[in-house]
C-alpha cells in the first residue's frame, strides 16, 4: 500500500494544492482513505493530519470508511425523480440486497444518493466509481447488477451505459460555426491585447454563471493589480440542479473554451490557468487532457504561444462532489487543495485569488463567448440580445418537455417561446436558474430571460400540471441543507431548520403559525448568510409561497399547534421494551376532544 501511495504522491509532486487529486487517486484504488494513509500523506505533504481529514469529510466523493468495490450513486435531482429515480433506487437496493447509504457486508457494492449529476436531459442518471451512467431503467439495472456480481471491471461494461449525448436542439452565436483552433488567438494577437479587451467591453459580455459581472471589467481589474503572478480559472463546477450546458460545451467546444482562457491569460498576463471540472464530469477528463495536449503540440498552449513570446498552460483539477465549489472563492480554496469554504470579501479574487494572487474566474460559457468575440468583434455580439443583456444565453432545458437538451437564445427571449420550442405542454411552472433562481408560474410566460428580468445561469426545469409543487420545493430545500458548507451560522443551522420546518408542513403537521415561522426563517437565512448558497437557499420556498399559498395552506391543520415529529412513534421503543400495546401506550398527534 505504502508503495502505491508513494507513487501517487510522486505523480502529484507532493504538492498540497493537489491534495484533492491525490485523495481521488487513493480513493479509486482503496475505496476510502484510511487512517494509516492519512498519516503517510500528512508526513509526505507536510500537512497537519487534521487538514487532510477535514478535506475528506468535506467532499461527498471522499470517504474515511470503505465504500464498495463498485460504488454506485444515483442522481437525486428533481428531474431524475420525475423520471422515476426513486422507484429505481428502491429496486436497485432490493436487488443488491443492501440498504441505501450502506456498504454491502461482502464489501463488493455500495449504493447512495448524490446531488444532481448534470444529466437531466438523459436521466435517471447515476455514477459508478466516478463515471457517469445515463438513461437508467430496470433492464439496465439488472444488467449492471449482473456485471457487479460477476466482478466485471467497470472499464469492461458496455459503452452504451456511459453514453452521454449533447442534445443540442438550438444553436446560436456560440454554438454555431465553431472557429478553427488558433483563429481567436491569431485575431487577438493581430489586434493587440488592449484592443481585444476593448472588443470584449463593446460586446457587453457579462459573466454567464448567473451573477452577470462585466467580463471586460473583471479582466481589467485583474490586469491592473500590482502583483504580476496572475491566474486564469475556468469554473466548470456547474452544480446547480438542472444545469448541464457546460458538460456539452466541454464535450464539443473545449478548444474554444481553452482558447478563451488563453486570450484572457494574454490580456491579464497570466502564465497558469486551471479548469476546475466538477467530479461528476470525470468522463470528460481524458478527452480534455488530449485536447490540451493537442493545443500544446500546435503551439496554442505552453511556451511562446504562436511565436508571440507568451507562455500559458492549463491544468485540469477535478472537484469531489461539493456544490459550494461553484462559488468562485470556494472554488479557489478547493483548487488550493482545501475545503471549499467561501472566503470573506473583500478582497475579491481579481486582487487576491488563487494562492492570494490576482485571479480571473469565469464560467465555461463566458470563455467560449470571449473566443467568439475575439474573432468576430464586440459589435457582432452586442447586436444580439437586449440593451442590458447582450448576446446569447445557452439554456439547459429539462423536465416535462418533448425535447430536453441544449438551447441557445438571444437574451430577451420569452419563456413562452422557449416552452414552445422544446415541446412543453400543460405547464404548471418553470424553475428558472435552478433552485437558487426563481420558480415562475405559467401565467408569467411572457417574462423574458435576461439580467433585467429573469436572470439565469442556464437551468430551466419545466413542470407540468401533474407535478406537486411541495415535492419540488422539498427536493430543493433538502439539496441546500445537504450542500451547505457549514461555515456561517445562518446557513449551517438555518438550511437544516428550513428542511425541518418545510417537512413539518408537507407531512401534514403544520398549522397557520408554522407558515409564518417558515417565512420568517426564510428571510433570516436569506439576509444573514455568508454567501450565495445561503442567500438563495430559501428561494424555492419564498417564490412558491408567493405564487401558490393555497398549496401550502391545504396542508395545514385548523389547530393552534402540532408537534413537528411523530409523537406516537417516539413511544415505540418504550412500548416494545415494556411489551405493551394498550390504549395508554399510544399518543395521538394532536389532542382529541
Amino acid at each position, binding site marked *: 500500500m505504502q508503495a502505491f501511495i508513494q507513487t501517487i504522491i510522486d505523480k502529484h509532486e507532493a504538492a498540497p494544492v493537489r491534495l484533492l487529486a491525490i485523495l481521488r487517486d487513493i480513493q479509486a484504488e482503496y475505496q476510502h482513505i484510511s487512517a494509516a494513509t492519512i498519516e503517510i500523506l500528512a508526513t509526505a505533504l507536510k500537512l497537519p493530519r487534521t487538514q487532510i481529514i477535514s478535506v475528506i469529510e468535506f467532499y461527498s466523493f471522499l470517504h474515511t470508511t470503505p465504500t464498495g468495490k463498485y460504488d454506485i450513486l444515483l442522481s437525486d435531482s428533481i428531474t431524475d425523480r420525475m423520471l422515476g429515480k426513486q422507484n429505481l433506487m428502491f429496486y436497485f437496493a432490493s436487488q443488491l440486497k443492501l440498504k441505501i447509504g450502506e456498504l454491502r457486508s461482502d464489501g463488493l457494492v455500495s449504493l447512495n444518493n448524490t446531488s444532481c449529476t448534470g444529466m437531466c436531459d438523459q436521466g435517471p442518471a447515476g455514477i459508478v466509481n466516478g463515471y457517469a451512467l445515463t438513461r437508467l431503467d430496470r433492464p439496465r439495472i439488472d444488467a449492471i447488477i449482473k456485471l457487479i456480481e460477476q466482478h466485471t471491471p467497470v472499464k469492461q461494461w458496455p459503452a452504451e451505459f456511459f453514453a452521454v449525448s449533447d442534445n443540442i436542439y438550438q444553436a446560436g452565436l456560440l454554438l454555431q460555426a465553431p472557429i478553427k483552433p488558433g483563429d481567436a488567438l491569431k485575431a487577438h494577437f493581430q489586434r493587440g491585447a488592449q484592443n481585444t479587451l476593448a472588443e470584449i467591453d463593446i460586446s457587453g459580455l457579462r459573466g454567464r454563471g448567473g451573477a452577470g459581472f462585466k467580463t471586460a471589467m473583471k479582466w481589467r481589474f485583474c490586469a491592473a493589480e500590482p502583483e504580476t503572478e496572475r491566474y486564469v480559472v475556468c469554473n466548470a463546477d456547474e452544480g446547480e440542479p438542472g444545469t448541464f450546458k457546460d458538460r456539452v460545451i466541454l464535450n464539443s467546444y473545449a478548444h474554444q473554451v481553452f482558447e478563451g482562457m488563453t486570450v484572457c491569460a494574454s490580456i491579464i498576463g497570466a502564465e497558469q490557468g486551471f479548469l476546475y471540472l466538477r467530479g461528476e464530469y470525470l468522463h470528460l477528463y481524458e478527452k480534455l487532457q488530449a485536447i490540451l495536449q493537442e493545443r500544446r503540440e500546435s503551439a496554442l498552449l505552453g511556451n511562446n504561444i504562436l511565436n508571440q513570446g507568451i507562455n500559458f498552460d492549463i491544468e485540469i483539477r477535478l472537484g469531489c462532489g461539493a456544490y459550494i465549489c461553484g462559488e468562485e472563492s470556494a472554488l479557489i480554496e478547493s483548487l488550493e487543495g482545501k475545503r471549499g469554504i467561501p472566503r470573506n470579501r473583500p478582497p475579491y479574487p481579481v486582487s487576491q485569488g488563487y494562492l492570494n494572487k490576482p485571479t480571473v474566474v469565469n464560467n465555461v460559457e463566458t470563455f467560449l463567448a470571449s473566443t467568439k468575440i475575439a474573432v468576430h468583434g464586440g459589435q457582432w455580439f452586442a447586436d444580439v440580445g437586449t440593451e442590458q443583456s447582450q448576446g446569447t444565453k445557452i439554456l439547459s432545458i429539462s423536465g416535462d418537455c418533448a425535447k430536453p437538451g441544449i438551447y441557445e437564445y438571444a437574451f430577451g427571449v420569452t419563456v413562452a417561446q422557449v416552452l414552445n420550442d422544446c415541446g412543453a405542454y400543460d405547464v404548471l411552472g418553470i424553475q428558472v436558474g435552478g433552485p437558487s433562481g426563481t420558480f415562475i408560474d405559467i401565467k408569467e410566460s411572457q417574462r423574458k430571460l435576461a439580467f433585467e428580468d429573469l436572470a439565469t445561469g442556464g437551468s430551466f426545469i419545466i413542470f407540468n400540471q401533474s407535478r406537486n409543487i411541495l415535492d419540488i420545493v422539498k427536493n430543493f430545500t433538502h439539496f441546500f441543507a445537504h450542500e451547505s458548507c457549514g461555515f456561517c451560522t445562518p446557513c449551517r443551522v438555518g438550511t437544516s431548520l428550513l428542511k425541518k420546518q418545510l417537512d413539518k408542513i408537507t407531512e401534514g403537521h403544520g398549522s397557520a403559525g408554522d407558515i409564518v415561522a417558515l417565512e420568517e426563517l426564510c428571510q433570516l437565512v436569506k439576509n444573514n448568510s455568508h454567501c450565495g448558497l445561503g442567500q438563495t437557499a430559501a428561494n424555492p420556498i419564498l417564490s412558491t409561497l408567493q405564487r401558490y399559498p393555497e398549496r401550502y395552506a391545504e396542508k395545514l391543520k385548523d389547530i393552534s399547534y402540532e408537534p*413537528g415529529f411523530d409523537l406516537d412513534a*417516539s*413511544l415505540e421503543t418504550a412500548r416494545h421494551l*415494556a411489551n*405493551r400495546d394498550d390504549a*395508554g*401506550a399510544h399518543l395521538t398527534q394532536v389532542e382529541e376532544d
Partner: protein
Amino acid sequence: MADKLKLATTSLAGCFGCHMSLLDIDERMLELAKHVEFDRSPITDIEHCNPCDIGLIEGGVCNSENVHVLREFRKNCKILVAVGACAINGGLPALRNHIPLEDCLNESYRDGIGIENAQIPSDPELPLLLDKVYPIHEIVKVDYYLPGCPPSGDVFWTFLSDIIAGREPSLPYELIHFD
C-alpha cells in the same frame, strides 16, 4: 374588585425546584393571593385543570403522561408559560437524549448495579417514556418563557405583576439567567 385571575401550575419532567422558587416570593404571596386564585397546582391538590387565565409549566416532556397534562393545560389556560430551563429546552433530563432509550431502560431496570428481579416494568398504570425529552414548545404552543434554573422569585413576581396589571410582561436584564 375585579374577579381574581385563575392560575394553574404543574411540574412535568422537572424537580419542583421552580415551584419552590415561586414560594420564594415570600410575603408577596399575600399580595399575589389578593389577585390570583390557584386552580390545579401542587399547592391546592386540585387534580384537573379548570378554565384558567395562566398556566405555569415546569419541566420538559419525557413521557406520555406529561403530554396529556401539558395538553390539558394548553386547552384550559389562556396564557401558557414555560417556566425554567427544563420546560424551555428539556434541561438536565434531556441529557439522556444522546443515549438510546433502550440503553437507559436497560441500565436502570436490567443491567445496572444492585438490581434485583431485573425486568423492564410493564404496567398500564405507568406512563411510557418518549424517545427523547422535549421542550414544551415542541409539543404545544407556548406564550411566554421564564428562564432560569430555577427562575428567581423576582422573576415570578415581575411576570405575574405585569400580567395582573394588564401589561405586556417584560424581564429586566438582571432577571434573565439560564442558571
